[in-house]
């Protein structure tokens, strides 16, 4: 049974690699560096804008302004940057789907991405519910500060894993 289940994943990855889009990107000299650059700029903007909100939560920057105001001017851009990173990442993934899937650094990055998403979800749905009250209280509740610290650690680790992927994939 185990053999059969890994076979269907292998077939799916193989099918993905052979789609016209994947073949076109893999075959072009310029497509990959351009997509990689978009990915780097997107992740740079994602990391930076998330950092603006996280540093406010940790009480290390912009403490004279309420959290919700700092979040409002940074987090929407974080989401847009994340979408750009996800799209560019997917375009890269499809060109060598099977190899990325087997790559240890890629798998670690995927897990960390899920954890980062979960961290953000828990924060938005539970912790930040009474963010309005934070403006009156002087400091952010510990759950908010933990979420911010986790966020920074996770995203930096994700960048490191991303670089490791570059070093552990076979060159074209």
């Amino acid at each position: 049974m185990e053999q059969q289940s890994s076979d269907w994943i292998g077939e799916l990855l193989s099918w993905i690699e052979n789609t016209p889009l994947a073949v076109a990107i893999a075959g072009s000299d310029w497509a990959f560096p351009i997509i990689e650059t978009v990915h780097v700029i997107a992740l740079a903007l994602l990391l930076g804008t998330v950092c603006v909100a996280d540093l406010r939560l940790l009480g290390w920057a912009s403490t004279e302004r309420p959290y919700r105001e700092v979040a409002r001017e940074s987090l929407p851009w974080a989401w847009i940057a994340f979408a750009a990173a996800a799209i560019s990442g997917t375009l890269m993934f499809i060109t060598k789907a099977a190899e990325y899937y087997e790559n240890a650094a890629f798998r670690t990055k995927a897990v960390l991405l899920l954890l980062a998403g979960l961290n953000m979800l828990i924060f938005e749905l539970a912790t930040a519910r009474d963010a309005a009250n934070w403006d009156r209280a002087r400091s952010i509740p510990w759950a908010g500060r933990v979420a911010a610290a986790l966020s920074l650690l996770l995203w930096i680790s994700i960048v490191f894993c991303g670089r490791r992927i570059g070093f552990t994939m076979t060159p074209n």
Partner: protein
Amino acid sequence: MRSCERIMLALAQWLSGTPMSLAIHELDWLVPLLQTVHIIAIAMVVSSVFMIELRLLRVVKSQSIADTAHRFVPWIWTGLAILAVTGITLIIAEPQRALHNPAFQLKMLLLALAIAFICVFQISLGGKSKFWFHADQSRPAVKLLVAVLAISVFMLWCAIAFAGRLIAYLQPG
């Protein structure tokens, strides 16, 4: 080969034999770590430029232009310092990769231009002209010029990132 190319090649060959260069290669996780710190510093610079531009384009208006600049310009300089340190270390680690590479040379040229823009911006904030104080109420032509400059500077940083990526692709034979 032109003489400056000869000098670069000689420098690259000398650097790759130094103890420091060889030591960096002993630790196979060091180059990806340096590159990661380099990318984090890129995030500092590009995001700070982005936040200032959002204000210049009046997409966000919660603070004055001067306050936004004072908030984010220090991050740009800090990021650039980290980029310089990690960049130089990466060059020492793999001198052949960078010094003799047209993509690297283009990147440095564009970087010099971008730093010039930051300096001009910072000087204009400190001067007596109060231009940025009244920027939100200036004539449409002036607002358009500011917008075009802001977007151009961001494109410039994107070009620097692209040139940086191309270093890996344009390895000398």
